[in-house]
């Protein structure tokens, strides 16, 4: 079965309207950021900022190492993060660049990677040609989420430029490697959803840590705003994965790609699987310089 074009178009139109509204709001912050850029031109290197960055990096190391060890036991990307984390932590901070610009460039690189990964997933034969409501819903969700990530990337790029940096339009090389390693093993929808959830969690947790590292209020607002959306992507993917694992394909449906889910048929676990912790627990993250130019 192919995607219902009419319903998909409705979804895309609705999404575009939301994106226009959202971008309009985000661009109102750009004049503030331009002022910050002018300030920084007069004082391009802030020693306190470098100290703050290095302190954060040490803090990040211990958090990420602990989370990465736990993550590695869970399968799909096991083995990929050990060396990866060592590389992340070993690489020196580029002290000659403003931290906020690095953070925004790296965020752009994660969004670029997400767009490419969803695009690749949609091209997998069993995703592209899968039949039934579940596959229709999964494809529609992937397309919409890809579009949202592209808008996130553009917003981060805009902020980067406004702060005087060069916009990043390449995928994050560190996590691109992780995706490349995972692609040959993507043999069923559960593994695809798991990979997407992995990237969404990396983005969510990276942006969470960025909130404490960013100096600029408007940049924090953007970071937090995108973080909240990635968290919802993650929750949705966790729910979809659980339904796939339970072979409850008829329950993977959401308007406008399909009818509303039959709430009475949802298993009890559907009420908790999307949020395993009361407070988000940080897993593997992209360090600020990992996607910097």
């Amino acid at each position, binding site marked *: 079965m192919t995607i219902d074009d009419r319903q998909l178009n409705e979804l895309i139109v609705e999404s575009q309207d939301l994106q226009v509204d959202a971008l309009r709001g985000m661009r109102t912050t750009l004049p503030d950021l331009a002022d910050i850029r002018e300030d920084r031109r007069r004082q391009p290197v802030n020693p306190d900022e470098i100290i703050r960055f290095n302190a954060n990096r040490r803090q990040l190391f211990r958090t990420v190492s602990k989370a990465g060890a736990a993550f590695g036991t869970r399968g799909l990307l096991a083995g990929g993060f050990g060396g990866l984390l060592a590389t992340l932590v070993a690489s020196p901070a580029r002290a000659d660049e403003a931290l906020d610009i690095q953070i925004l460039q790296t965020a752009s690189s994660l969004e670029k990677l997400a767009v490419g990964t969803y695009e690749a997933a949609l091209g997998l034969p069993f995703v592209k040609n899968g039949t039934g409501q579940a596959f229709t819903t999964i494809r529609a969700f992937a397309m919409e989420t890809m579009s949202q990530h592209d808008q996130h990337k553009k917003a981060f790029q805009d902020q980067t430029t406004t702060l005087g940096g060069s916009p990043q339009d390449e995928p994050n090389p560190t996590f691109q490697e992780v995706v490349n390693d995972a692609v040959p093993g993507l043999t069923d929808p559960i593994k695809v959803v798991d990979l997407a959830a992995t990237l969404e969690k990396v983005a969510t947790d990276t942006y969470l840590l960025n909130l404490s590292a960013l100096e600029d209020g408007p940049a924090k607002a953007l970071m*937090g705003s995108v973080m909240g*959306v990635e968290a919802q*992507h993650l929750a949705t993917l966790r729910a979809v994965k659980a339904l796939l694992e339970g072979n409850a394909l008829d329950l993977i449906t959401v308007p406008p790609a399909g009818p509303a889910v039959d709430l009475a048929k949802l298993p009890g676990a559907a009420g908790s699987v999307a949020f395993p912790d*009361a407070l988000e627990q940080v897993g593997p993250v992209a360090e600020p310089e990992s996607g910097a130019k």
Partner: protein
Amino acid sequence: MSPNPETETETETSALAQMTGARVSRRRFLVGSGAVAGIAIVTAACGDDDEDDAADDAPAGGGAASGDLAVAKLAAGLEILAVDAYTAALTAATSGALGAVPAAVATYVATAKAHHEEHRDAWNAVIAGAGEDEVTEPNAALKPTVDAGLAAAKTVGDAANLALTLENIAAQTYLSAIPALTSKDAIMQAGQIQIVDQQHVAVLRFALGMYPVPEVFQKTDQAATA
């Protein structure tokens, strides 16, 4: 700094102390709730270097501590409101007042209630750590609206829609507050809770037959103010 916060000396200055200019023990900060484990991740990861402590704990703006405490109190009041609402929903569901309650809804309500209890305790730990009385009352501005919504709820869908409103308000309040917070621990905690509340929103929307991720950028138009 010791990796074990329980061994901290009573005179160590924490980020929360800097929120209010007071010196309090990290023990006092951390023992309030298991939910504070999220903060413990940050503080325990600071290592043994005193210079690191200073860098990590210093408010980004170097002052204006009272603003953070105001946010903590606002957040605690919202969390109490959510706990009360979920408790009332559980009572109504148990009594049959909402009709048949699907298994997923029952699990969700119990889970979300427990989450908000942890959030409440986490913020009250912050408040108590700053030497102030914990918040024990729900947000007064929103309580009448929630009470009216609960009284009018006749179905699971009614209750879920009310929960959706509350979760949106909470998530947007945290997002709105984060750029103004000065303590790194407070920023981290607000962000950790914002994420979970946004996930509550996504699942509620899915259950109610709505697209789970309706916005490209999370909004703040429903955020509560102190």
